[in-house]
Every structure is written in structure tokens, then in C-alpha cells.
């Protein structure tokens, strides 16, 4: 039997202790995102307060607000109003400059975190008995014609593969009988390449593809290193469906919720902590 790793999703791949709660596909990610936003918002405020020049930021914000008030107070005086507009723009630029340093400092860990979290929240895993697409992009037309897909037990092809000459791609439609992590293997030009496919009802970490020379590949999943630059396959991609969170009245990408909730949290904490943002 070729390559099935496990039928059970590993503990590492499940997100925290909530993952075993199979419940609502929408509610659990939403709760997790909100909880993370709380932590991120709090830490971001602390970091912003620490890395920024609070006195200058307070001063610049005060002056901006003063000139906003000036626009209203001296509305009959065109020169004063125009001067106030000019000052507002100037102080806004100053504020952005002052906010640049803490923003840049926070950007690095936040980007890393978000990229990492995207592997959990960005896509839904394949569900048992649901068909999905598995795509392989080849380096050459020859490799495309020679490619052979080997499936582990539990995975089956539900249609014949489609060859798209123009993009040098081969697309298979597959179905999984059970939940678990499956390793499919592609044989071409005497080389063997594997790709993990995650089938689950839980919130699990998902890596949609395996690429040639991808800078984050190993970091995102140590078990799946980048394809070598000389590989006959450029990319292998599983057709996981992008996850959207249903808020009742609108469908949102998880990053939007994280952004909004962490900003809101930060606004609350900044008041409690007396930090100017």
C-alpha cells in the first residue's frame, strides 16, 4: 500500500484544545479568531506603547484634533480654515511617521503569525465522501504525458484526469472515504513526488500545495519540504475550498474578522492601559 500516513489527524495539526469539538464548522473558527484577536490586540497595544514615542504621538494627535476644531470654530475665516487643513495634513503625515516604527516592528511577528494561522483558517479541509481536485503542474509537456498518480487506500479517483496542455497541468478528481492525512504520490520522469491531503471535519492545519523552491514551504509544514528546482513537477495543489466565516449578515474572510476584532480590542485596551495609538 502506498503512502497513507495516518487516519487520525495528529495533535500537532489540530488547533488547540477546541479542535476535538467537532460542532459547528463556523462557530469554532469564529470563537478562536475572536480569542486570538483579544490576545493580539492586547499585545499589539503593549508593543505599540513600548516602541513608540508616546509623548510625541500624543502631541501630534492633540494638534491634529485642535486644527479639526479650528475648522469648525473659525469657519468664517477662510484663511484660518485653509491653514487648519494644511496643518491637519502635516500632522497626519507626522503621525504616520511616528507610527511607522512600532508598526514595522509589529509587522514581522504579526505577518508570521497570520501566515501560520492562515494554514488553519484560510481553507476548509476536504470532507469524507466529498470529491475534490488535485492538480499537478509539470515542468514540461513530456512530464505531463508521463505522469502517474498513485493513491493510498481510502482515496479514489472519481473521474478521469484532465490534461490542460496550455498550462501543463493535470487535474484529478478524487474522493476520500475516511478522515485522515493521505500521502498521494506522483511518478514522472523516473522521479516520485508526494503531497499530503488532509481529510477531516475538524479545524486542522492545511497546506494547499507543494511548490518548487518555495521560501516558506518547510516552515509551514516541516514534513513537506520544497520541490527541488530540477523537479519535473513545478507545483502540486489540492483544491481545498477557501473558508469564509458567516457572521449572519455577511460572509467574511477570517483576516477581516481578526483585523476588526483586534483593532477593537486594542482600542479598549489602549484606554485601560493609557497608551496612545
Amino acid at each position, binding site marked *: 500500500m502506498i503512502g497513507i500516513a495516518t487516519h487520525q489527524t495528529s495533535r500537532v495539526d489540530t488547533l488547540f484544545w477546541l479542535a476535538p469539538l467537532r460542532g459547528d464548522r463556523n462557530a469554532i473558527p469564529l470563537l478562536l479568531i475572536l480569542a486570538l484577536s483579544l490576545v*493580539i*490586540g492586547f499585545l*499589539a*497595544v503593549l508593543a*505599540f506603547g513600548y516602541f513608540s*514615542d508616546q*509623548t*510625541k504621538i500624543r502631541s501630534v*494627535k*492633540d*494638534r*491634529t*484634533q*485642535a*486644527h*479639526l*476644531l*479650528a*475648522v*469648525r*470654530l*473659525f*469657519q*468664517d*475665516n477662510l*484663511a*484660518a480654515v485653509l491653514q487648519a*487643513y494644511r496643518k*491637519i*495634513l502635516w500632522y*497626519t503625515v507626522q*503621525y*504616520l*511617521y*511616528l*507610527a*511607522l*516604527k*512600532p*508598526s*514595522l*516592528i*509589529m*509587522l*514581522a511577528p*504579526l*505577518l508570521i503569525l*497570520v*501566515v501560520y494561522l*492562515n494554514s488553519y483558517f*484560510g481553507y476548509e479541509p476536504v470532507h469524507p465522501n466529498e470529491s475534490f481536485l488535485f492538480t499537478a503542474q509539470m515542468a514540461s509537456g513530456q512530464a505531463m504525458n508521463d505522469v502517474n498518480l498513485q493513491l493510498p487506500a481510502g482515496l479514489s479517483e472519481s473521474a478521469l484526469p484532465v490534461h490542460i496542455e496550455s498550462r501543463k497541468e493535470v487535474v484529478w478528481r478524487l474522493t476520500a472515504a475516511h478522515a485522515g492525512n493521505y500521502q498521494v504520490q506522483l511518478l514522472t520522469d523516473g522521479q516520485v513526488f508526494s503531497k499530503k491531503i488532509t481529510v477531516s471535519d475538524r479545524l486542522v492545519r492545511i497546506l494547499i500545495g507543494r511548490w518548487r523552491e518555495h*521560501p516558506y514551504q518547510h516552515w509551514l509544514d516541516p514534513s513537506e519540504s520544497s520541490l527541488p528546482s530540477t523537479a519535473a513537477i513545478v507545483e502540486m495543489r489540492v483544491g481545498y475550498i477557501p473558508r469564509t466565516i458567516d457572521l449572519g449578515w455577511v460572509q467574511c474572510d477570517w*483576516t477581516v474578522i*481578526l*483585523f476588526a476584532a*483586534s*483593532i477593537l480590542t*486594542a482600542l479598549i485596551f489602549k484606554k485601560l492601559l*493609557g497608551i496612545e*495609538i
Partner: protein
Amino acid sequence: MITRRTRKPLALFRKRNVGVLFLLLAILLHPHQAHAYAGPGSGFAVLSSAWTLLLTFLYSVYAFVTWPFRQAFRLARRRKSYRNAKFKRVVVVGFDGMDPELAERFMQQGKMPHFAKMRATGTCSKLRTTFPAISPVAWSTFQTGCNPGKHNIYDFLARDLRSYLPLLSSAQVKGPRHRLRIGKYSFPLGKSHVSGLRRSIPFWHWLGKAGIFCSVIRVPVTFPPEKFPGVLLSGMCVPDLKGSQGTFCFHSTHNRATTRYESGVRFTFEKRGSVLQSYIPGPDHPLHEESRELRVEFTVRPDPIRGEAEIVIGTERFKLKLGEYSEWIPVKFTTGFGMGARGICRFNLRQLEPEVEVYVTPVNIDPQSPSLPIAHPNSYSIYLSKLFGRFSTLGLAEDTWGLNEEVLDDASFLQQCYDNHSDREEMFFDALEKTPQGLCACVFDTTDRVQHMFWRYMEDGNSAAPRDSKSEHAQVIEHLYQRVDGLVGRIMQQIDPRTLLLVISDHGFKSFNRGVNLNSWLLQNGYLALHRDAIESGDWFQNVDWSSTRAYTLGLNGLYLNIAGREGHGIVKPGAEAEELTQELSQKLEGLIDPETGRVSISGVFACGALYAGPYATNAPDLIVGYSEGHRASWDAVNGRVTLKVFEDNPKAWSGDHCIDPRLVPGVLFSNQKIEAQGAAIVDVAPTILNVFGIPKPHHMDGRVWKVNSTSIDSTAPNQVI
């Protein structure tokens, strides 16, 4: 100076951070779906600036769309407003208490070149003050153009006719009418109401009605601010957060029996290891009907080796060097249930060894979040505060009692004065810039406070002996006048010939060596009686037998008859009996000799019936007592205290005064234009300014209109000597 953590904004671009920057750029240059999320850091920046820009943009759109209509309306109105105006702008700079004799002396010595220039090319004259020569009275007359009988201000204090207790004459704060009692709490149903007691209409209201924009800053007796088309920041008579006219705190590790000062409170620090703890008292708890004050605790960690102390109050933490003032520190008095009051105060580290002593200014109303209205529109104080930082809002912002009670020394008091003065200058120049047409009026009261407290250094033999070496402060008043001259110079640089500049003062200044307690004199002469066995009274007429009292004095210059039907326990019949008593008192008091000095202590007594006319003349004292130079109502008399001594030395630092015979303390009038101002009086200013803008003098105004020459000035004209 306050010690704060500061960082260089460009620290990120140091060498060691360049690598990190490149890494971040590298990440950014590899786009991925999730990278769209930039996180709260840049989110804050973007949101904050975007919000500002959005607001500005929206308001700009509104302003742009409506501008042609508004401008057309205003142009039509303004053309009408300024059609008969002789000048496009009038700038009134008030220097409270600037004395014409001192000004003349310093001009002659060449120390006030800008005033001398006005004297040479414009106008220089004495300005007759009001009866009595007290700031709230004179500035009320300035703004209304009326005698006190029409504006109802006769002193800082008025009296309650029933209880004979003092009341603030200018404003009154009333709590909510109804309260809801739940358990130990009593919730106010409605807001507290502040009402002004000054009557009549300030002249800027007339200007505003005519479409002329006005900026009015710190003119006394403008609290609470009244609505008018312009901006106004209230001045003298604005209370502190406790509702008083200024109550300082003094905290010390030295335990003394005294807990109260005049206008101040003393606290003993509680020691907790190396940290000292105390509190600042605030306003009364609004949810408790019994008087229970709110408090804000603070700690002090003294470091005698470094000569500094760290103070922590609320979320504020700062270090002070010995003798140093903090910035204005925001304090919040919370009551729970989301209620509270915000104030600001400054700390001064007075001493570190052997005892730790910290002075705290009265808690001013926070201009950024005012608990009581102190500006019109309300946002004007917020605007000023955001632009220039927090500033003192208390009416009598310079803590003269702190110096009188020797809690502050001369230098600290002077610093407080000049800090406030600098703030005021910034506000004034901003108002000047924002008022290219119309009226810009500002009153600086540092001149008054400094002269009150430093006159003792000007003359030998002053009873309030200098506390520091005389040479150190001998020239404080001269420097003050020079500073004021510099300010006028800067103003003159910023105005053109189409601006009329008026520099005025409400009164002059004289020495205050000897106090006269008229209540004691009235007791000794049988006009006032104490209850049996009492030799002296307490404060505010405690032990006074009103059923046998015919006259009493309260405040600085007023003498009242105890009129039947008017006062709560009046015995003097109105009409002939009162008239006779008035004449009798006038005759006896005028020329009253101080037996210790042999000098006349009262140079004039004026019957108010002849001084005032108007609907509020009945609230006036019956007599205004005009003390001669060197004398004034004693501190006891002002507080309604009857003692054994009629005359006594004034030992306080408050050694100069103006609450004397108003004929002896005229103010000043300077202008950059020629004004025919023979016998000019402060009451003339309002009708003259209205006239300058082509607005006829309202019938009720008592002042006369000066002839202001708006043609070019002949710089060769002879100087008019004061």
C-alpha cells in the same frame, strides 16, 4: 521640568535594524493572501490618520458645497457690518492693575520703549476706574459700558441678606433640583446649573449681532460663558474643581496641629516603607447628600541623594527635582457608576530633607474635558488645550495665598505667574491670528498678582518685610513692566494701521501697609454689637448681635447698614433714619486718622445712592469706603471678623493693593491711534468700540464715546505726559 522617557523617532534606522528592515521588506515583496493583513500596528496608524482625514474630507466637502452660499450671505452681512467701521479690527489688551505712575516712570527711564512709542505717536492717558476699584467691578463695567448699578457686581463677594454670610458675587452653582435616593446613594436627576450674576450685556454681544467676529480671552467675570457669535475663554471668577476660588494643598512628613491655611489645606504624608502616600481632595461626592469629598491618592518616592522625587498619581508617573514644578497633571475624581470629574493640577517639590514637602496647586477644571462650562463654544477650551497643552483655568490662577501662607517662596510664585502668563500669550497671539477682522480682547492678570505680592520689595519700611534678600526681587515689578512692554511690541509688529490697539488697565496700584478693621471701629463706636460676653467675633460675624447692630462691613470696600426689611435682622428704618446714619458714618469715617502713623486712613466715603443708578443699585453697599494710600480693609475685616484692633500692620506678602479710594488708583489707556480721551474712564471703552465699528451706543450704556482719529499719526506730535 518633568522627566519623561523620550526616544528618537529614527532609532529604527540604526545600523543594527537595517537587517530587520530588509527582512520585512522581503516578506512584503512576496505577496500571499494572508499578507494582506497588516495587523493592529499599521491598523492603528491607518485607522487613526484615516479617521482624521475622513473627518477633514467630509467637513471639507460640506464646507466646499456650502461655501458659496455662506460666503455670499456673510459678504452681504459683513459689508453691512463693516460698512461704517473706522477700523477693520480692534485689539484690546488688558493688563490688570497696570499703574500709570509706574508706567510713566519706566517709560521715562527708557525701559518701556513700545509704550513710549504709543505715547509719542498715539495715545497715553489715565483711565478712571470704577467705585470701588476692584477688578470684577471694573472689568464688568469695561465689558458692559455700565455702572455697577446696571451690571450688579460690587465686589468679589456679595452678602446673603438673611444670614449675612458671603456669597460669590459673579456666579452661582446650583445642584440638581431633584434626587433619587437608593440606599446610601442619592442620584441626581438632572444637571447642576451654573448661572452668572453679572447683568447687562457685554459689548461683544452687540458686535456679534452685527456680524462682527470676536475673540475674547480671560476677561474677568465672563463665567459662566454666554452664547454669542464668537469665541470666549472665561477668566477671573472661574472656580476650581472644589467650587472655591482656589484651594491649594500642602503635603508634609512633618505632623503639625494646623490642618488649614487661608485658601489651602495641609496634609501629613502617610509613610509606607520608602513611599509616602497622601491624597488631593476634590469636589463633594455627588451621590452622597452629606458633604463627603472625593479624593485622588498619590504617592511620592523621595530620593534625597539625587535631589528628586518620583510622584505617581493615577496613570501618571513623573520625577521632580527640588523646587521644580510638574506640568499640568490630569486627575480624575471617580464616584463609580461612570460618574466623575476631571481636573488638572501642578506639583511642586518644596523640600526633601529633613522633611519631605510637596505643594499642589488648586485643582483646576480640565480645559480638555471641562466639568463646568469655561468657554464658548465649549470646544474652544478643548481647542486651546489641544493646541498649546493644558493650562490654568482657575479665575485667580496665581496662588497668592500659597505665598501669603509661606507654602511657596517668592521664586516659585513668580514662576507660576510667568508660566500662566506665557500660556496666555500663546492663546492671545493665536486669537489675534484668527481674528483678522473684528474684536480681539484679552486680559493678562499677571500684572495684578505680581504687584500685589512684590510691592514690598519696591519700598523701604513696608510692613510685609521682604522674605528673600531685597536685591534679588527688588526689580521684579520693573521686569514685569518690561515684559509687558515686550508683549506690546510683538503685538504692534503684527497689526497694521487699520487696527486699533487699546492697551488698558482696570486700576492702578498702591502700597498696602496698614489694615483697617471697620467692623472693629463700628463696634468701638457703638454701631455694631456682639453678643454678651463676646469680646471678638469669629469669621463671618459669628457672635455679632444683629438686633443691636446698625452697620457692618463685608468685602473690600463696602459698608452696609442693617436695614429693617432688607437684612434678615435689620433694625435701621429705611428712609430718613438710614439717610441720617449714612451721613453720620461718612462724616466720622472720612479723614479717620491712624493713631500709630498719624496719617489719614480714609480719604473719602461715598454714598452709593449717588454713585450708582440702575435696576440692581439696591444690591449695592450703602457706602463705599475709599482708603488712603498705604491703607486698606484689614484681612479680618474682609472676612467679617470683629477684633479688638482697628488698625494693624499688614505682615503678609500681599503688600500692594488697589482697593482704596478709586481716585488714587486710575488705570492706563494707551493706543496706537490718537484718541481724544480727556477724562477717559473704563466705562467709555465699550461704547467707543461699538462706535469704532459704526454701531450706535445702546441707550442703557453709561460711558461716553471717545473720538478716535483713524487718520495717519503725526509722530512729531508732543508727548502727552500722564
